[in-house]
C-alpha cells in the first residue's frame, strides 16, 4: 500500500475568494416552526433542531437515491439544500424518481426536481446548479457543512472527497444498483457527546475501538448522576477505504465471521475498479466484460481475506444484472438511512455510521464495516495517497480529465483550482 502523505492544515490559505463558510446567525426557532417540527423535536431536542436549521447541504446527482435523501432532509428543516446535476431527464428516470413527471423529459434533472423539492418545505432555501460537479474548484465545497455525492463513479467520488476534506466538511457517498447499494461516510474527525448514567467505574479517556476514542468526560450540569462523554471518531478517505483498506481485525478473526461478510462488498469494489479501468460499468451481456468482472471480483474478495466459497456465481450474476437499475424501495431504505445519519452527525449526540454500509435488499442486510488502511486516520490523512489501484488505474486517472485528486495534493496548490 502506498504511503500516506501528511501535510499541515492551513485553512487560512485556502478559499482565497472568501468562500469560507461563516456560521449563520440564528434568530431562534419560532413557535410556528416548533409546531411544525414538534414530533421530531421531541426525539432529538431543540439544540439538534437548531443545528439542523443552520446546516447547508449539497447533493450531487439528482436520481432516485438523491430524491429520497433530499426529501428527508428538506422535511427535517435544514437551512439550505443545493442540488448539482448537469444531466438531462430521460424516460428511464421517471421509473423511480418521484420528483419527476412526463413533461420533465429532456430538461435538466436538478431543475426538474427543484420545484417539487421546494414544495416539501418552503422554509428551506433550495438552490439548483446545472454545471458539472467536475468543473467545480475545491473552494466551492467550503460553503457546505455536508456534501452528499450519489450515483457517481469512484474516481469522481475521490476528487470530491479530497476537496471536501481540505475544508474538513462531512462527506457522504452513496449509490444504488437495483437490489444492492452502499453508503460511505468520511467525517474526517467527528466529535459527539453521549449522555449516560454514571457508572461506579470512572469513564477512562482513551481509545474504545480502532477508530473511536473518549476525549472528554464531564458531569452533567445540575445532575451529578449523569455524565457527558465526548467521543471522537476518525475516518478515512474514499480513495483509501473504497479499495485497499482492510476489513477490521475482529471481522477477520474467525472463519464464521469471514464467511458472514457479504460478497456484495467484493462486487462493489470490483465495479468501482472496473469502471475506472474501462470508463464504463460492465455489460452483463458481454462475455469479455463478464470474464474481466469475475476476475476482479475474485481478486477483491481474496484481497479482503474472504473465503472463495462465499463469492458464488449466482451472486455475481445477480449483481451484474442489477447494475444501473433503480428500485424505489431500495433507494427509500438507503436514502432514509443516509439522511438519518446526516441528521445524527449534525445533532452530535449519537454514534454515526463508521464508515461503510453495504445493503442487500433481498437478504435485508445492511451491514456496517469500518474499512480503514493501516496507519494514520482522521485529519492526519488529510491528503490522499497517490492513486495506485491494483490494476494500474493510476495512469488512467492521471491521464483523465480530472487531475485533481489523482495525484497527491498539496494544500497550498489548492488555490489553482479556485
Amino acid at each position, binding site marked *: 500500500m502506498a504511503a500516506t502523505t501528511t501535510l499541515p492544515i492551513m485553512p487560512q490559505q485556502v478559499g482565497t475568494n472568501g468562500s469560507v463558510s461563516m456560521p449563520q446567525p440564528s434568530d431562534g426557532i419560532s413557535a410556528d416552526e416548533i409546531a411544525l417540527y*414538534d414530533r421530531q423535536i*421531541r426525539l432529538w431536542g431543540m439544540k439538534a433542531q437548531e443545528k439542523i436549521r443552520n446546516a447547508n447541504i449539497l447533493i450531487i446527482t439528482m436520481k432516485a437515491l438523491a430524491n429520497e435523501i433530499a426529501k428527508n432532509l428538506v422535511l427535517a428543516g435544514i437551512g439550505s439544500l443545493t442540488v448539482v446535476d448537469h444531466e438531462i431527464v430521460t424516460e428511464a428516470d421517471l421509473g423511480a424518481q418521484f420528483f419527476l413527471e412526463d413533461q420533465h423529459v429532456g430538461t435538466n434533472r436538478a431543475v426538474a426536481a427543484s420545484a417539487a423539492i421546494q414544495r416539501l418545505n418552503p422554509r428551506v432555501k433550495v438552490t439548483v446548479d446545472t454545471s458539472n460537479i467536475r468543473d467545480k474548484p475545491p473552494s466551492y465545497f467550503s460553503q457546505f457543512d455536508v456534501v452528499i455525492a450519489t450515483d457517481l463513479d469512484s474516481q469522481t467520488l475521490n476528487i470530491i472527497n479530497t476537496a471536501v476534506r481540505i475544508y474538513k466538511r462531512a462527506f457522504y457517498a452513496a449509490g444504488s444498483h437495483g437490489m444492492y447499494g452502499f453508503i460511505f461516510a468520511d467525517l474526517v474527525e467527528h466529535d459527539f457527546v453521549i449522555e449516560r448514567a454514571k457508572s461506579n467505574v470512572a469513564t477512562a479517556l482513551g481509545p474504545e475501538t480502532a477508530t473511536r476514542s473518549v476525549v472528554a468526560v464531564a458531569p452533567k450540569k445540575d445532575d451529578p448522576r449523569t455524565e457527558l462523554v465526548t467521543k471522537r471518531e476518525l475516518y478515512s478517505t474514499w480513495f483509501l477505504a473504497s479499495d485497499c483498506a482492510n476489513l477490521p481485525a475482529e471481522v477477520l478473526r474467525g472463519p464464521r465471521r469471514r464467511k458472514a461478510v457479504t460478497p456484495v462488498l467484493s462486487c462493489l469494489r470490483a465495479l468501482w475498479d472496473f469502471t475506472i479501468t474501462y470508463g464504463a460499468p460492465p455489460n452483463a451481456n458481454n462475455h469479455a466484460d463478464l470474464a474481466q468482472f469475475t476476475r476482479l471480483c475474485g481478486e477483491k474478495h481474496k484481497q479482503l481475506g474472504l473465503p472463495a466459497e462465499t463469492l458464488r456465481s449466482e451472486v455475481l450474476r445477480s449483481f451484474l444484472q442489477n447494475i444501473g437499475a433503480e*428500485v424505489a424501495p431500495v433507494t427509500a431504505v438507503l436514502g432514509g438511512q443516509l439522511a438519518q445519519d446526516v441528521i445524527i452527525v449534525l445533532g452530535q449526540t449519537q454514534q454515526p455510521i463508521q464508515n461503510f454500509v453495504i445493503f442487500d435488499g433481498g437478504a435485508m442486510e445492511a451491514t456496517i464495516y469500518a474499512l480503514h488502511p493501516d496507519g494514520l486516520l482522521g485529519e492526519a490523512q488529510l491528503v490522499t495517497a497517490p492513486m495506485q489501484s491494483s490494476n494500474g488505474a493510476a495512469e488512467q486517472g492521471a491521464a483523465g480529465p480530472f487531475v485533481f485528486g489523482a495525484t497527491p495534493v498539496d494544500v497550498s496548490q489548492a488555490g489553482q483550482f479556485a
Partner: protein
Amino acid sequence: MVSDVNECGLSLTQAKQTRVLMVGAGGIGCELLKNLVLTGFREVHIVDLDTIDLSNLNRQFLFRHEHIKKSKALVAKEAAQRFNPNVEIVAHHANIKDAEFNIEWFSSFAIVFNALDNLEARRHVNKMCLAADVPLIDSGTTGYNGQVMVIKKGVTACYDCSYKETPKSFPVCTIRSTPSQPIHCIVWGKSYLLNEIFGTSEDESAFDHSADGENANEIAELRRESAALRYIRESVGTEQFAQMLFDKVFNTDIVRLRSMEDMWKSRKPPEPLDYRALMENSSEAIDAKESVLKDDQKVWSLEENLVVFNDSLGRLSKRIIDMKANQNGTGPSPIITFDKDDEDTLDFVAASANIRSSLFGIDRKSKFDIKQMAGNIIPAIATTNAIVAGLCVLESFKVLRGEYDQAKEVYLTPFMPARLLGIDRPRKPNPDCPVCSVFQTRVYVDLSRATLNDLVEDFLKLELGYGHKEISVSNEVGILYDPDETDNLGKKLSELGIKQDSFLTVTDEDDDETYVNVVIAIQEAKEPSGDKPIKSVDSDGLKIPMKPKKETPVPEANGHQNGVGKRAHDGAPLETTLAKRPHPDDSAEATLTKKARIAAGVSADDGVVVIGDGARGGAIVIEDDGAILIDD
C-alpha cells in the same frame, strides 16, 4: 438458478398485475404509497379516516400546509397519482372497521399493508386478513425504531401470536396522596382535577384500584375529598372560584395529607401553599403573562404557574358557562375533557401539575414536555418511516413470489456499530394464539328466521360434529350460549345483534380431546335457503383440529437480541374474549363501561398510563384504551 434481478424483475412484472390494500395514510402510509406507486402495482386502495394536521407535515411528505384538515386518504391519492399515472389509486376516507370492508372485500386483494398507529386497528386488520386468508405486511415505527413482519395464515406468526405488554396504571394513592414523579402530578391534573371540575367525574381508567383494600381508610378519605371538590364546582364563574379551588387542593387537602404522619416516615411531606402569599409575589409574573403563556419550552416558576392556573381556569370557566347557556337547560350537563391540542385544558393541566409538583418537591416540567406525557405523543420522524416503508415493499416481493421461507422479520437497530437492520426468520404461528390458532369457517344464514338453537343444535352439534361435547358460543359482547346459559336459544340470531360479517366463537369446554376454538363468520344467505336456515359455505366436510396437548409454556423466543425495547410500545393485553371463556359479568361490564365512556364523550386521549421503555429516560406513554400510538 434464478438470479435476483430476474426475481426482482419478476416481482415488478407481478406487481403490475396486483391489487393491494394499504391501511393508514400517515407517517408510514405516505412513504409506502410512494413506493407502491413507483413500483407499479396495478391498483392500490387506501383506507384512512384521519385528517391532516400541522404536526404531520414534518414527515408525511404528500401533504402540505394548504391540506390541513383535509382527508389524508384523498390528498395522498391526489399527490401520489402524479408519481405514476398508470396506477389506479382508490381512496376511502373511512374507518377500516366499517361494515363495507368485510371479509369478502379483504379477500379481493393480493396483499394488505398495515401502516397503522394503533393496536386496535392493527388487530382488526390482522383478524380480517386471517379470515380472508390474505397475506398481511405489518409495520410500525416509534422514534428511530421500527419493524416489519409478514403475516400469512398458517405459515407465519400473526400479529396477536406474541404477548402484548399490558399498560401499567398507577395506584390511586400514588396519584392522590403520594406522588413522587412529574407524571403522577400530570395524571392528577388531567384525570382527577380537570375531570372533577369540568368533566363527568374521576376518570377511573387512569387508576389501578388493586391495592385499595390495603389503604381502605385513605381511600375513604379521598372519596370525601372528591365530594368536597364537586361541591366547589358549583361556584364556577364566580370571582372567588380560583382561590376556592386553589385553597382546597393546594392547601386544605395538603394539610390533611400532612397530618397522616405514617405516610411521611420515609418520604418528605408536602408543603401546603398560601394563595394570598403567592399572589403577592406574583406581580412580575402577572405582568409577563402573555410571554409566559407563549413559552412552552421554559419550565415555569411557581408564580408563573399560578398565573397560568388562574388564566386557564378563567378561560375554561367562561367556556363551560357559555356551553350551559347555549344549551337552554336541556340535555346532560356540558363537560370539557382533556385534549392535548386544546390549549385551555393543556394550560390548566400543566399549571396544576406543576404547582402540585412544587408542593411535593418534584421537578416541574415545561408545557412542551407535559403535552407529550399527558397527550400520548410518540416522537416520529421522516427517515424511520421511509426506511420501514421501503422494507415493507421489499418483503412484498417475496410474498408475490410465494417465497415465505425467504421472508424476514426486520427491525431497525439505530446506532449499532455492526448493522443498521436486525433480521429474524419469521416465527411460526403460536399454537395457543387466541386469534390465528382457531379454526375458521363461514356459514350462510337466513337471518329472517335462524335462531341460536338452529345454530347450536343443527349446525354445531350435528354438522360440525360437536355432538354431546359441552360447548359455549360467544361474540365480542360476551357469552350467548353455554350449558348453563340457555335463555337465548329460542331467540333469532338477528335479535342477538348478529348480522352480516358478525363473528361467533365456539369454545369446546371439555378438558380432553379438545377441539380448537372455531370462529364462524356469518354470511347472509342471498336467497331463501330451503329447509335449513343455516348452511355451511364450505361444501367439503369440515374437520376441526384438536388442541395440542398442554405442555409447559415456552417463553416466547423470537430471537430479538435488540428487539426488546422497541417492542415495548406494542403493548396491550390480549383480548380475553377469545383467549379464554370470559365470565359473563366481566365481559358485559367491560362492554358497558366502554359504551358509557363513549356515550359520555370522554376523549380518546383519556386512558391508562404506562411507563415507556425508558429509551428517553423513562418516557411516559399514555395509552388510550389499550391502543398504542406509534406514529400518527
